[in-house]
């Protein structure tokens, strides 16, 4: 693979209570594309993300300035209004708050009417959209997402995925998930995390490659046969 169109990250061995959880490895993210990281629950997906972010290191903290992060829970501050939650990063860094930009982003995720609401007055889907807006507000090159759609019902999830795809155009995204259909729907590149210590390997199976290369994401379910084949294959990777 060419190195020019990739961000390359070195992940070091990671131990948790003297058990070797993550192997020393290199993770490559295609620039301005969606990479999905799949794997069974408990295999270490979140640990890998945290290592990437430099959160789990005892030693020096890696500069996180190129990452923004979206978690499974929205992590909104319940005492702050929607607009204040969106500008939180600027507030925490002591910068002047760009409310015009925040309002633009909130309009992008369809929440312009709700800027002065508190998080508990919104539905779960809307709250996750606020979290998306806060992630966009950070305006970093790489967006790491840790199952941000997992806690939502099917309809809300689709809706939020659409918002995310549109709003994150031009960003490099690493999406951690265990939802196979989400992978087929969104990714340009798939990593599977397996083993103990866990190692992420790129899925290069020809069937999948064809889908990933020939049908641009986000993919609709128009070719049911292809879709089924792909998900059957990806599911088989788990076992």
């Amino acid at each position, binding site marked *: 693979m060419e190195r020019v169109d990739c961000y390359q990250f070195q992940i070091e061995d990671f131990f948790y209570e003297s058990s070797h959880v993550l192997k020393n490895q290199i993770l490559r993210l295609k620039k301005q594309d969606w990479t999905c990281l799949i794997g069974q629950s408990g295999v270490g997906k979140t640990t890998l993300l945290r290592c990437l972010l430099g959160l789990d290191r005892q030693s020096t903290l890696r500069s996180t300035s190129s990452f*923004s992060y979206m978690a499974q*829970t929205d992590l909104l*501050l*319940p*005492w702050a209004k929607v607009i204040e939650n969106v500008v939180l990063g600027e*507030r*925490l*860094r*002591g910068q002047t708050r760009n409310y015009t930009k925040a309002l633009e982003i909130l309009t992008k995720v369809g929440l312009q009417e709700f800027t002065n609401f508190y998080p*508990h007055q919104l539905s779960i889907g809307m709250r996750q959209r606020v979290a998306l807006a806060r992630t966009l507000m950070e305006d970093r090159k790489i967006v790491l997402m840790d199952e941000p759609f997992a806690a939502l019902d099917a309809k809300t999830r689709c809706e939020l995925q659409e918002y995310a795809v549109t709003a994150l155009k031009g960003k490099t995204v690493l999406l951690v998930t265990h939802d196979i259909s989400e992978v087929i729907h969104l990714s340009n590149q798939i990593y599977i995390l397996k083993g103990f210590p866990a190692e992420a390997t790129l899925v290069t199976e020809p069937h999948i490659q064809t889908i990933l290369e020939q049908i641009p994401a986000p993919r609709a379910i128009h070719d049911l046969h292809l879709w089924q084949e792909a998900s059957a294959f990806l599911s088989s990777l788990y076992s």
Partner: protein
Amino acid sequence: MIKKTIALFLLLGLWQLGVTILEIPVYILPAPTVIAGSLMTHHMLLLKHIFISAAEIIIGLSVAVLLGGLSAILIDYFDRLKPLITPILLTLQSTPPFVLMPLLLLWCGFGFTPKLIVICLSCYFPITVCLLDGLKRSPSNWLDMATIMGANKKATLRFIRLPAALPCLMSGVRLAAIHAPLTVLAADWIGASSGLGYLIMLSHGRLQIELMFACIVCITLMTFALNKGVTLLEKKLVFWPSNTL
């Protein structure tokens, strides 16, 4: 609400009936009507002492919130202070504040100041400890988010950890609000020239048992109002549901 009122009146009726039938003298147990009469006759006197006690409690509590809050923040922010301050806090906790009252009387004389100091001391500990505990338990995923955003320690404290610890601080204030009336009364008994505790001792000395009971009623009502006030303040400040994370 109606049931509670009925229950209260039933209890008072029984009391009244018992006192009348058994012919208990007023200086042992006055009937509710006699106490009510005393409340009416002495209302100016009672109001004056209620006002003094309430002012002492509210000012003492407020100063304790300021001092306790400040110390908790300082202890949390400067890790090195912790081993220095913890023994002081523990000593304070183990000393019932009103035993210091005679000493404070010696230093500050009769009046407002020694009582204020005693109330402050009794409220300071629960407030400091509760806020410190709240700060210690900042949700780690919020802190991770702040780290990723490039936040500095001070901003994280101000915009995430302090608001997140507000419910804990309010628990501390509620605890302190229970301590405060107790302390102020005990302080009154040790040496004071005003306040509801002083009035109780005075009426006791003069065998005005009905006035003593009137004082007790006032203290109960005052404590009730204080707790209600703290609950209202808590609802106003912590307006978000607690299960948000």
